[in-house]
């Protein structure tokens, strides 16, 4: 029992200050210092505790602080406002309205976190402890039923029971593939060999996805406990967490968690006095996208270049150092303790026929409430984007959402009522992936989006298969040609044929799914491709070679702002007279459109 936690029993208010990566980058650690100074000034430091938590999820409005027990939710905090906040709320008991959240397009503030749509519509399983505990205090994890599932697994269940429970729960891999977790464990358990390994994949590489980082930052013990239960089921005694070197905060908290679990004997030899011994090592990834693929990840841990290899044999038969190995990602592991604690039926009671439980999604792009959400499978895209996500900012129209990262697809507005699960996303040409959702508005050019993701894959292809290595490069060349107005109609057939060849001829998931953004944008936004090719126009006004900037003389007030801000002196005109853009000088940077207060820059 450590002193800090014992101390906390005495406080009457707990300020749960978010210290996830996003809020830390908005100086939440500095806020803690200022808060504590102010509390001291008012002699409140023995009454009010400041607790650093993991990511709260509502990253759009950080730094975030929730004051418990009342659950008052403050956002966008600054150093300057802290003295006012301390005096009003903590001394005089008057929560500060102007720091509370006002939903988009509404006027009244919503004081309590539990009443804000962004939170109230979520169901937390993998993120169950986010914002509620200090991730660096193991006692706080234990107090929320932490390590109880491991105790149950070791004292009341056989390895077969554990696997049966996970199978019954319907849990599937949350890293992308969606393979049933219980069956995966069973393969590894049944594989011959006395040395077996567990790996936790925290090499989260999809642009815009950060749920694994957030889980490790907010609740590292949940991941460790899940792994220990999995190890018991499979018969492994050693594990590796493969974590990106770009995640220093997650790594720090994970190392601390391993240390405190060892101190308590929750890792190490003879856990809870049983014959079960389990140790966890950390392995730093250097940021190659392909390392998210199981066999590449194993190669990387072994110190070899991260290239995938043919399967079978699957890692369950011959994985790390040739031993049977089971890999799951962070979110999958974090679900395991809850399933053991609350039972498979509880978990299987959520979700759809084929996809049970909840899924964490990162909501990014053109969306009001950027952040991390956990929702039951089977929820519709419309609920996620418009009800939880608060819709598209600045009155723009929704155009598409890219799910599943660079290898996923773009889903158009006509499919917004699609209930989300592994199968339904595959059917519409996208995938679950790790749960990244990039929302796009009407100003997004879909050809440009496809180009962006293919460009990403060209960089990240490991180069082993020519279809992926060279095929992606050719896809990129064609897309670039189209964006430059040099596309031909035959290009569309070529894109399709080449995509099929890349899918067929590549060995790992990267190559097999890389053409998805091209195929899905061609399927749902063919008009836009044709506009680029036939009319030499970019309807969204993005592709520079196909657009022109000009000024609407009716609307222009001659304020000279755009003229002053134009970096290439391409705007001319007299004060209070309509200005003009000199097309031969204009570099189409878009600054004039951004600064114009009268909305008179036209892009065609």
């Amino acid at each position: 029992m450590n002193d800090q936690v014992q101390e906390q029993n005495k406080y009457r208010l707990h300020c749960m200050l978010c210290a996830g990566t996003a809020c830390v980058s908005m100086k939440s650690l500095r806020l803690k210092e200022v808060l504590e100074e102010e509390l001291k000034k008012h002699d409140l430091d023995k009454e009010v505790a400041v607790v650093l938590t993991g990511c709260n999820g509502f990253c759009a409005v950080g730094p975030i602080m929730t004051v418990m027990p009342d659950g008052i939710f403050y956002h966008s905090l600054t150093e300057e406002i802290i003295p006012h906040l301390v005096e009003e709320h903590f001394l005089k008991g008057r929560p500060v309205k102007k720091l509370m959240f006002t939903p988009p397009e509404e006027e009244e503030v919503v004081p309590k976190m539990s009443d804000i749509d962004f939170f109230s519509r979520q169901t937390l399983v993998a993120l169950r402890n986010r914002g509620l505990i200090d991730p660096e205090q193991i006692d706080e994890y234990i107090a929320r039923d932490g390590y109880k599932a491991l105790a149950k697994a070791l004292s009341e269940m056989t390895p077969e029971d554990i696997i049966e429970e996970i199978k019954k729960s319907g849990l599937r891999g949350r890293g992308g593939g969606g393979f049933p977790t219980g069956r995966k464990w069973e393969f590894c358990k049944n594989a011959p060999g006395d040395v077996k390994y567990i790996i936790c994949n925290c090499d989260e590489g999809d642009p815009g996805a950060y749920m694994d980082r957030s889980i490790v930052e907010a609740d590292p013990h949940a991941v460790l406990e899940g792994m220990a239960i999995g190890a018991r089921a499979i018969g492994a005694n050693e594990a590796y967490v493969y974590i990106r070197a770009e995640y220093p905060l997650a790594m720090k908290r994970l190392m601390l968690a391993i240390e405190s679990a060892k101190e308590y004997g929750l890792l190490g030899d003879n856990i809870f006095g049983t014959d079960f011994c389990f140790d966890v090592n950390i392995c730093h990834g250097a940021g190659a996208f392909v390392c998210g693929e199981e066999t590449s990840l194993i190669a990387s841990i072994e110190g070899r270049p991260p290239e995938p290899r043919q399967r079978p044999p699957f890692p369950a038969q011959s994985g790390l150092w040739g031993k049977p190995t089971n890999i799951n990602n962070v979110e999958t592991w974090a679900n395991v303790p809850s399933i053991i604690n609350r039972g498979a039926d509880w978990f299987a009671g959520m979700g759809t026929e084929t996809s049970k439980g909840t899924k964490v999604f990162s909501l990014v792009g053109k969306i009001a409430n950027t952040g991390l959400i956990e929702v039951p499978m089977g929820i519709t895209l419309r609920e996620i984007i418009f009800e939880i996500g608060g819709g598209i900012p600045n009155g723009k129209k929704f155009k598409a959402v890219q799910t599943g990262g660079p290898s996923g697809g773009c889903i158009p507005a006509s499919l917004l009522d699609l209930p989300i699960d592994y199968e339904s996303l595959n059917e519409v040409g996208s995938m679950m992936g790790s749960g990244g959702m990039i929302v796009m508005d009407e100003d997004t050019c879909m050809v440009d989006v496809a180009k962006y993701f293919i460009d990403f894959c060209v960089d990240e292809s490991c180069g082993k298969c020519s279809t992926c290595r060279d095929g992606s490069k050719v896809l990129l060349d064609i897309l670039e040609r189209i964006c430059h107005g040099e596309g031909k109609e035959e290009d569309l057939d070529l894109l399709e044929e080449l995509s099929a060849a890349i899918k067929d001829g590549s060995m790992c998931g990267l190559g097999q799914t890389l053409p998805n953004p091209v195929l899905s944008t061609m399927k749902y936004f063919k008009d836009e491709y044709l506009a680029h090719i036939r009319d030499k126009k970019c309807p969204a006004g993005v592709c520079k070679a196909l657009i022109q900037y000009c000024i609407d003389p009716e609307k222009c007030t001659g304020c000279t702002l755009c003229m002053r801000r134009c970096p290439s002196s391409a705007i001319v005109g007299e004060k209070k007279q309509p200005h003009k853009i000199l097309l031969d000088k204009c570099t189409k940077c878009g600054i004039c459109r951004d600064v114009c207060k009268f909305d008179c820059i036209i892009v065609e």
Partner: protein
Amino acid sequence: MAKLSIHDLDRISERVKRTTLLREGAGRAKITVHMGTCGIAAGARKIMNTLMDEIAERNITDVILTSSGCAGLCSREPMATVEIKGEAPVKYVDLTTDKIKRIFEEHVLGGKIVEEYALARGSERMS
């Protein structure tokens, strides 16, 4: 640190219980001390401190202590509202440390309203 046994998990949970309950906003009873300028001037801080001491000394885990602004009846400060789960809130007025100790003992822990210090049962309606 000795290795934990399964039984130790409950022991740790029990010791952190007050923190856990408070974070979850769950408690059997809630005491609100009115801490407007008038309340503070009349000695609300002393009331708050007494309650904090009582809770710590008796190792009570299921009572939430919170503050709020002026209750509007400034002449009768210090004031506090006691709310037992499932029952109407009771407002107490003209508090002293002795009075609040008795209220804590009899009402918060014992469930019996201290009629002689109480102003009224119920709370104002919000429009």
